[in-house]
């Protein structure tokens, strides 16, 4: 029972990371109808930026800001270089281009930084606290708190601010939005920046728990995507619930079934969902209009 509680805590912590990246997926998908397969690389690049900044001697908080600014810049470059030129084409070329971008990002970092995994210190000096039978790792606590704050922020931003409403309008009907004087290209740019920063934040938060490696991006991205499908594709709440669920399933699977196949559980769950409930937990089936 104690072990189960401990695993539940760890699972929610890692699931929160998937949820953050999944949120980035969903935001870009809603704005552009495109799945960004390089979303995970945003996390990876941010973690490396953080490592570089900390090694350069910056204080942790300054390194954090530098890394997130770097991610905002990457969001701009990504939009202009990968999405924007293809915006009038069908989804297939865009998917392929984002896959190309993901390969480019991962291997550029590999070429520059080499294959050795890096270690990033956690934010806090104290490694964690013992609460009853459960040991609460401080980094996991931080991840969970940040995720909760971001979910609240997201809700406030999209529902209560004018900019958030403009973004929503753009994602629902681009033509109508532009007729109402909303600059669609600006809104899409903001979405990419926000999504890159969100992905970066997830990467920086999870870096002290995992190793900082080239593969971390694709691993996180695949699970985050699985999370969006499990939750219901394109649904914000679904992405978060799906991410948390996946983190828990995976942690329990690794503890009770098999460690080497830990990364396989997400995919098995994903395929099971696709067969039995493709619309996910929250999603509705949508049909193309004739």
């Amino acid at each position, binding site marked *: 029972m104690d072990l189960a509680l401990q695993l539940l805590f760890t699972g929610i912590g890692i699931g929160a990371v998937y949820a953050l990246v999944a949120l980035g997926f969903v935001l870009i998908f809603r704005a552009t109808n495109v*799945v960004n*397969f390089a979303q995970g690389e945003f996390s990876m690049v941010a973690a490396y930026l953080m490592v570089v900044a900390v090694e350069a001697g910056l204080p942790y908080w300054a390194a954090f800001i530098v890394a997130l600014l770097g991610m905002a810049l990457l969001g701009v470059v990504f939009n202009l*270089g*990968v999405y924007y*030129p*293809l915006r009038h*084409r069908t*989804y*297939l*070329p865009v*998917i*392929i*281009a984002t*896959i*190309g*971008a*993901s*390969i*480019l*990002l*991962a*291997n*550029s*970092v*590999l*070429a520059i930084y*080499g*294959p050795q995994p890096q270690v990033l210190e956690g934010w806090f000096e104290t490694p964690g606290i013992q609460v009853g039978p459960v040991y609460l790792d401080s980094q996991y606590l931080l991840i969970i708190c940040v995720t909760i704050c971001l979910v609240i922020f997201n809700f406030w931003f999209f529902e209560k601010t004018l900019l958030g409403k403009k973004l929503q309008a753009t994602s629902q009907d681009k033509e109508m939005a532009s007729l109402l004087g909303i600059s669609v290209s600006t809104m899409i740019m903001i979405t990419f920046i926000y999504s890159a920063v969100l992905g970066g934040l997830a990467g920086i938060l999870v870096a002290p728990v995992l190793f900082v490696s*080239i593969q971390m991006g*694709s691993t996180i991205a*695949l699970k985050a*995507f*699985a999370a969006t*499908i499990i939750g219901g*594709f394109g649904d914000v709440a679904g992405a978060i619930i799906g991410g948390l669920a996946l983190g828990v399933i995976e942690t329990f699977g690794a503890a009770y079934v098999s460690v*080497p*196949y830990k*990364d*396989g559980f*997400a*995919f*098995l769950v*994903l*395929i099971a969902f*696709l*067969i039995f409930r*493709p619309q996910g937990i929250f999603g509705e089936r949508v*049909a*193309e209009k*004739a």
Partner: protein
Amino acid sequence: MSAPSDNMPIPAPAIRSKPLVVRHLPYFIGAAILVWLAATMRFDGYVHNILLQATTFSIAVFGLSVVLGLCGQINLAQAAFFGLGAYAVGMGTTDLQLSFWLCLVGGCAISLLAGAFLGMSTLRLGGHYLAMVTISFQQIVTLVMINAIWLTRGPDGVPNIKRPELFQTSQSYLAFCVAMLAIVGYLVWHLADTKLGRAMRAVRDNELAAGVNGIDVFRTKIYAFALCALLGGLAGGLFAGGFAYVSPDQFSFAESIVFLTMSLLGGVASPIGSAIGTGLLILIPEWLRFLKSVPGLYLAIYGLFVILIIRFMPDGIWGFVADAFTRWRAKIKATPAAAALQLKPATIGGDTVLEVTGLSKHFGGLKAVDGVDIAVKRGGVHALIGPNGSGKTTTLNVLSGLYVATSGRIVLDGTDISHMPPHQRTASGLGRTFQNIRLFRSMTALENVEIGAERPGNTMVGKGDDALTERAMEALTFVGLGSRANELISSFSYGHQRLIEIARALASNPTLLLLDEPAAGLNSTEKLELHELLKRIAAQGLTILIIDHDMTLVSEAAQHITVLNFGRRIADGESMAVLRHPDVVSAYLGSE
């Protein structure tokens, strides 16, 4: 549009094409020369290895040209299927001491089954899902290869893989692989012009239109996907025999991306492009070996290549060449004269062709169609009218199976089609056009109409491709576009595209033709011509159910009118009486 002389029976016999074997003879001669060269030329070991790699990889990339090029579906796990085939031969010929041939066939079968299973789980959903599921599958296969040491020997890989008795020397084995490449290349090249290939292209261009033209979209996608996996497995098996050693890193996700890049670079739509792309991407890294000394650098360049190709050269290298060639050929290709189109709508049921009872379609709380009855009499024009938002198009979409009815019964010519998917309704004799034109945009007018003519159960088409072409030509000539049959859809005006859509439906010899606002967007001359066309269709006894806003067209063309408002039927009967009906007048003009 008006070319009445086109419609006259012309005595000149239609041009018969030469038998396939004769037309394709140059290909086989070329292939035989290549095999002979591979069998006799002296290569050093290095060149031999490169050739062997290029040959086997090309076969795997052919798979992508089927699934991505022909059918428009993505597969990011081709290296995994390649690996399944390779490990089947690897483990089969060493651990199990089985015959090479048995292992090769077994590997193909495993890949095929895996591909079919993945396809069945995902292909009903959109392309994003497929991309992600294939990546997931790729990861699972890699995990198993590395971790299931008892089965696969783990990261060390499988050495000492056997070759078949017949091709023990590396020279003869290479010749064998080249021969396989030539055969597979021929099949893939020819596939585009078969019934299945046309169905795949139709699905790629427009899934909805493919469905209502009698194509089982889901099954077609699964065939494409399974075929791609099969070719991956075959290529992997040949690869394993050739290099006698396999290890998990040869079949990683990165390799799947390499396959994808090869396919995109050469031109995803054709096997020649695939072979060019594969050759280039095997040779270029060999020339630029120094890139491999920095880990990641050459894959980073691949990634950049993918973005640039997609942006600037969407059809690949071969796409450029082929495009110019097609345009040139389309101009010189003579369009064979066509006989007059015969429409012989089936008459199995009684006087009523279509009997709709209590049809409802609810979207959540919205009752778009609410308990509508329609009875369409045989051999006439029946119009379905109503103000905007009255549920006309929804009714049509429920009739053709694009929406599932909430309740109600639809009987077409004696057959209950209420629960059939779109392609089966088409097979039962339903033809339709769309309000916003849905043609297969990468194909010629003729090819579009051929897909219509290919409807399962079309009794007006004989056996073979020539009969199909003939039927399609007749239908195009009937609408007055016979002389432009070999032009691409994009070169036709809006009004002509409408006519091609009607021709596509007519070629299938439907029992009932559904026309969804055919006059929308046409100018007044085109409308007159459309009216003439409807008369000529009706004169052949084909029943038409038409939706339109143009009251002149409706009142002149239709003998019977059903009026909908707010999803309910408010009037039904003989045209003039219905148009004077007070409820109808108030629905359109508002009551006093």
